[in-house]
């Protein structure tokens, strides 16, 4: 049935490990991954819990397609309550860790409580056990991974861990796996750190999940492979240039946020774009996650000999144009450093950008820099210095920046300079140029995020069809459909990028053949809707309100000053009411009883 049928519960307080049966009735309603983990989490955790207390839990969850031969089936999710946003967190990652976890016989791991001293979870052929992590505590992500692989003596084992940022409870710390793959957002790494849980290492032989209907599954996989090969994005754009193929597109479209969203076009984009990474010869080869024919990952070597992965589009932008930095080497090094420290690249870059604006406007006093360089837009020296400071929690500013852009800007009396939604830093598209994407940003259950409703696809990339980025009427419908479908993709264990080539019908065929379900496409979209509403309910109980479904004031009130969208602001006031209505929510953004009953959440 493509599930292993087992989940592992790890009580870190007592050191007790228990294997439990996967609740199949819930798996039918929530699939797995993001959906099922959120359901289990909501059933077990009080939404008002302090996210960094032992009462919070952290779930690592694969989906029914993780580890199968479905293309891009290497994904897993980290679900918890976010210490950054106070909302539900669910961060997705690729690489090989997720499929390895299934090889080891577990769909899900639930961590609860807090260990009295740093530990890591080792899952090997002898079974799971908790091990003293003294040898790796304090080490960066790469070194931790290396030491643990040595320790278990299996170079094919897979490691998910936190770096110094997570140990220091930075609210923008990520969980890293396979060294450079990140469950990056919402501070999930801090929750691991708060539990004294440094890492999970899984050593297991390949144990391919058994699908319900092997013949049917094989046939749909073949269809998927053909579609991925046919589609120009998945067969050419992403493999050749990676996600950084977007730099020039988004800049030309006048929505490439520069200098903390003060500008929307970056004059030096040609120096830092995906094309530049290739033409300067830094890109050595592409890299793929488990079972992925697309291979959008970048193996990079810089002229100074430093090697690493990326930067991806988002990271290259946040550590580049957002901070006005046009030195591709400095940007790439900053990206490597974030991966080593276990810091979310989007949040780290946007936090530095906020610090730069605070400093340049005189709100952040010079004495707070201590010995650090001046926080000027364009300073690659400041970029490197403050990433290290925030990742290791050093100095006045390092400590403040480790809490993310909102808390930093608020501490200087100017929260409006934090480009955040629900206190989480915004990604690389100025919503004044893309109205649908802005609505998706404002309504994200996990705060500022672009992947849970990637409206850039139709609004800018003309994929699957072109819709006018400034048109308003159709946007709530598009946003809801994209949000619901993404919830499905995140829950089944595939990569969102597969959706450039695949549609809801194919996902449904894959899931049905793998799990033995007989869902229609409408049923599948209802599952997505159910997951979205469940997350929303958690947030409401955690204290979030309609006032949190908003964008930074700058994006709502300050018109763009250049480019094709000159004069535009974001029209959230016109988009939010019809979106709430379409969702079946009242005017305060609360799901109606009728809606909840229809979704089985009443």
């Amino acid at each position: 049935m493509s599930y292993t049928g087992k989940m592992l519960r790890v009580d870190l307080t007592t050191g007790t490990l228990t294997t439990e049966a996967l609740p199949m009735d819930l798996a039918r309603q929530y699939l797995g991954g993001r959906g099922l983990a959120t359901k289990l989490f909501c059933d077990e955790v009080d939404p008002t819990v302090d996210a960094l207390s032992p009462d919070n839990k952290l779930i690592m969850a694969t989906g029914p397609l993780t580890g199968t031969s479905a293309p891009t089936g290497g994904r897993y999710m980290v679900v918890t309550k976010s210490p950054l946003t106070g909302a539900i967190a669910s961060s997705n990652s690729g690489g090989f860790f997720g499929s390895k976890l299934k090889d080891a016989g577990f769909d899900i791991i639930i961590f609860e409580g807090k260990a009295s001293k740093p530990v890591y979870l080792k899952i090997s052929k002898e079974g799971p056990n908790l091990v003293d992590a003294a040898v790796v505590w304090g080490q960066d992500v790469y070194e931790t991974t290396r030491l643990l692989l040595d320790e278990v003596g299996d170079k094919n084992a897979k490691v998910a861990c936190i770096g110094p940022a997570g140990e220091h409870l930075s609210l923008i710390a990520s969980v890293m796996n396979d060294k450079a793959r990140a469950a990056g957002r919402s501070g999930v790494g801090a929750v691991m750190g708060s539990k004294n849980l440094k890492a999970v290492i899984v050593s297991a032989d390949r144990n391919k999940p058994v699908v319900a209907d092997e013949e049917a599954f094989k046939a749909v996989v073949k269809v998927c492979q053909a579609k991925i090969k046919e589609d120009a994005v998945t067969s050419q754009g992403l493999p050749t240039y990676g996600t950084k193929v977007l730099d020039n597109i988004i800049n030309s479209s006048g929505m490439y946020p520069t200098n903390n969203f003060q500008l929307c076009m970056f004059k030096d984009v040609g120096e830092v774009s995906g094309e530049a990474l290739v033409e300067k010869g830094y890109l050595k080869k592409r890299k793929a996650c488990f079972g992925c024919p697309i291979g959008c990952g970048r193996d990079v070597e810089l002229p100074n000999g430093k090697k690493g992965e990326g930067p991806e589009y988002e990271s290259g932008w946040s550590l580049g144009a957002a901070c006005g930095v046009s030195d591709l080497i400095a940007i790439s090094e900053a990206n490597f450093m974030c991966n080593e420290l276990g810091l979310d690249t989007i949040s780290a870059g946007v936090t530095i950008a906020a610090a730069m604006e605070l400093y340049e406007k005189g709100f952040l006093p010079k004495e707070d820099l201590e010995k650090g360089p001046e926080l000027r837009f364009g300073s690659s020296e400041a970029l490197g210095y403050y990433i290290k400071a925030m990742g290791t929690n050093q100095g006045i500013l390092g400590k403040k920046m480790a809490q993310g852009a909102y808390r930093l800007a608020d501490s200087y009396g100017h929260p409006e300079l934090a480009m955040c939604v629900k206190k989480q830093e915004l990604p690389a598209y100025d919503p004044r140029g893309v109205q649908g994407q802005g609505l998706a940003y404002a309504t994200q259950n996990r705060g500022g995020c672009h992947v849970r409703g990637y409206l850039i696809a139709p609004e800018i990339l003309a994929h699957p069809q072109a819709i006018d980025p400034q048109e308003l009427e159709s946007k709530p419908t598009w946003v809801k459909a994209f949000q619901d479908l993404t919830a499905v993709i995140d829950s089944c264990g595939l990569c969102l990028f597969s959706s450039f080539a695949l549609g809801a019908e194919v996902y449904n065929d894959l899931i049905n053949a793998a799990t033995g379900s007989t869902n229609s496409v409408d049923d599948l979209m209802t599952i997505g809707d159910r997951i979205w509403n469940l997350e929303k309910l958690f947030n409401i109980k955690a204290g979030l309100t309609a006032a949190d479904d908003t964008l930074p004031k700058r994006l709502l009130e300050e018109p763009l000053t250049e480019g094709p969208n000159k004069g535009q602001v974001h029209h959230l006031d016109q988009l939010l009411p019809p979106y709430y209505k379409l969702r079946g929510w009242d005017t305060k953004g609360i799901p109606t009883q009728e809606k909840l009953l229809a979704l089985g959440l009443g």
Partner: protein
Amino acid sequence: MIIRVHFYAMLRMTTGVSSVEVETDGPITMRQLIDLACQKTRPQLKGDLLEGPQIKKGTLLLVDGRNVLFLDGLDTMVQGDQVIAFFPPGGGG
């Protein structure tokens, strides 16, 4: 008048240049511009951008940052003081 066309991503690889200049007597349509750019680079460029009479799915022809699909399509008039950019289908996030 000189109109400069900028190429990105795979189009840079296939044409071997990052931009090309074409000379015209005045404003021309996007369709005419593609023909002239083909003559200056390679004949296959047209097939890279168009599928019969239509712009290929995901291909972006931008005039001052605006997709011609939201202007007059291939009949959109272009001239020398505009920034013209051609992108093959791209994606990411």
